[in-house]
């Protein structure tokens, strides 16, 4: 059984995928080379047509010694391209994803995969003269030591040295000389800036079998919005027990993070029975400058950035007899089993990021119309009681709704017609005589809901009951009146 890919083999993989699947992939040369001058690339996977889809960014290799994850992401890219092109599904142990699932992901998303963002670190780990347990990149620090912990170098409370974070250059959790002082983290920021459609993010690490979501600086709380990372009144107090501080996260976001995490967990467990724990990052330990906190926090900085659902997955577990080395670098046969389960989890994650309305409406609605619908959701729906509930339903159950629709051509057609008609009402909401929702449309929506309900999971069924209750009172109302 051969072993892990080298950084140059991972590069070869991305180039080969781009050459072999030119219509499906775009090779992205990240703007900055690594400290030791390696070119770093990402691959974008997307089928042709439709420029307004959500983006998913998957990042690996941040911590050099965690050898599994760059191979895992390169393998996922290959499997997605192969399956989409061959009209095939993908099987991972006990979990199968159908050809329709693969198609939904590739047609419905821009999938950005940056499998090895710290090639210098990986080279050092794999070099006979290097160090097998190296964690950081290979930058030159003041005082002569080497390396910054890239997952402490993002611009999220960077200056506050929270929890397992260090300002000492020789430490393994050294946060660098400034936020984004490292070319490797600047490359990730560049991807987020350059592709503002990225709405979902996973930074894949090892080990511990965890699915982690923000925040990482302190316990989450949803009752006091003034306790937030931007409020200087709390500077220096975050991450410390007994200060009364909790990092604010809207309750709906906390629920959404946890729900998506549970779906990923279940898709991982279905492969070979390993049950990952879904929890807030701070439950593991406090940090500042972390990637998932940074990606999620961008939305709150008033720059107009989209909300990014940012996660960290910690792959693999201790080996037999508390074998720590196994956690980071298991024999390759065992690593392949870990890759299978995480690839399954990541496909599930991607499907949760596909926008249902876009997928169902894309054949009939222009890009501008879809943009306007998105604006209606993000600006108006989320501020109104009913609208918020409907947006949450689509966010939480969109993947299941899409799968059910995709499995029934007739139902998909009915949903298309409903979306087109509802979109017209939304798009004309500012007209003097804004159109009203007719009883006939309500009846058609109800028919689609009835069909979905027949095959829905208990969770979706419960959400559909609430939707049906809302539908009873929307006839005769404009779009804005309906979401109140």
């Amino acid at each position: 059984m051969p072993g892990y890919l080298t950084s140059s083999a991972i590069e070869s993989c991305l180039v080969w995928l781009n050459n072999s699947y030119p219509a499906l992939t775009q090779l992205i040369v990240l703007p900055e080379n690594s400290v030791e001058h390696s070119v770093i690339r990402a691959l974008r996977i997307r089928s042709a047509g439709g420029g307004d889809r959500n983006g998913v960014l998957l990042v690996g290799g941040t911590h050099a010694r965690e050898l599994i994850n760059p191979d895992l992401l390169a393998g996922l890219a290959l499997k997605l391209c192969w399956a989409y092109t061959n009209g095939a599904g993908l099987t991972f142990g006990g979990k199968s994803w159908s050809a329709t699932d693969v198609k939904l992901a590739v047609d419905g998303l821009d999938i950005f995969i940056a499998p090895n963002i710290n090639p210098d670190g990986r080279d050092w780990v794999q070099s006979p003269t290097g160090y097998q347990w190296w964690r950081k990149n290979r930058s030159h620090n003041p005082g002569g030591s080497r390396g910054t912990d890239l997952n402490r170098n993002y611009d999220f409370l960077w200056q506050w040295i929270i929890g397992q974070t260090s300002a000492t250059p020789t430490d393994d959790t050294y946060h660098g000389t400034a936020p984004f002082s490292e070319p490797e983290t600047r490359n990730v920021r560049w991807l987020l800036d350059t592709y503002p459609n990225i709405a979902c993010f996973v930074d894949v690490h090892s080990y511990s079998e965890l699915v982690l979501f923000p925040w990482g600086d302190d316990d989450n709380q949803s009752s006091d919005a003034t306790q937030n990372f931007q409020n200087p009144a709390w500077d220096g107090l975050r991450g410390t027990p007994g200060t009364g501080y909790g990092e604010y996260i809207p309750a709906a976001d906390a629920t959404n993070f946890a729900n998506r995490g549970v779906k990923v967990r279940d898709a991982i467990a279905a492969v070979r029975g390993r049950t990952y724990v879904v929890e807030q990052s701070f439950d593991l330990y406090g940090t500042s400058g972390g990637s998932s906190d940074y990606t999620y926090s961008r939305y709150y900085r008033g720059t107009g950035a989209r909300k990014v659902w940012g996660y960290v997955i910690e792959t693999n577990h201790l080996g037999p007899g508390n074998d720590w080395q196994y956690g980071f670098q298991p024999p390759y046969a065992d690593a392949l089993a870990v890759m299978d389960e995480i690839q399954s989890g990541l496909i599930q994650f991607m499907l949760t990021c596909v926008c249902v309305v876009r997928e169902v409406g894309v054949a009939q609605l222009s890009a501008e119309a879809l943009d306007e619908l998105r604006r209606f959701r993000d600006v108006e729906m989320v501020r109104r009681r009913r609208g918020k509930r409907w947006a949450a339903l689509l966010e939480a159950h969109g993947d299941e709704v899409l799968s059910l629709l995709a499995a029934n051509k007739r139902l998909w057609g009915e949903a298309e017609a409903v979306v087109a008609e509802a979109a017209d009402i939304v798009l004309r909401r500012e007209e003097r005589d804004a159109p009203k929702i007719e009883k006939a449309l309500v009846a058609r929506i109800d028919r689609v809901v009835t069909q979905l309900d027949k095959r829905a999971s208990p969770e979706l069924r419960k959400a559909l009951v609430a939707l049906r209750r809302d539908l009873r009172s929307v006839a005769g109302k404009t779009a804005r009146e309906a979401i109140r």
Partner: protein
Amino acid sequence: MPDETPRRFFVTITADDPAKLREVGRFGLDLFSHRTEESKTEIAGLVTLEDVGTLVESGYRVLVHETDRPRRTHEYVTFDEWRGERLAELERQQKRS
């Protein structure tokens, strides 16, 4: 061993109080949390003997397990070999289905 990294050891760090265990992050060490078979959270780490001393002085229990000397030699694979295996597996799967 790199010249700038002193010999380190894989350790398990425990404390009676979970809050104290969480605070262990403030030492800037290379830590990785995990759950034992009994679902108890421990903090593991890769630390120097000097770090072990600091932790013990601060009231933590530290169990030293093994040095960071590589136990196994890794073999690396060329991209062509790797690709061949992945594609062969996908084709096997396709035939089975």
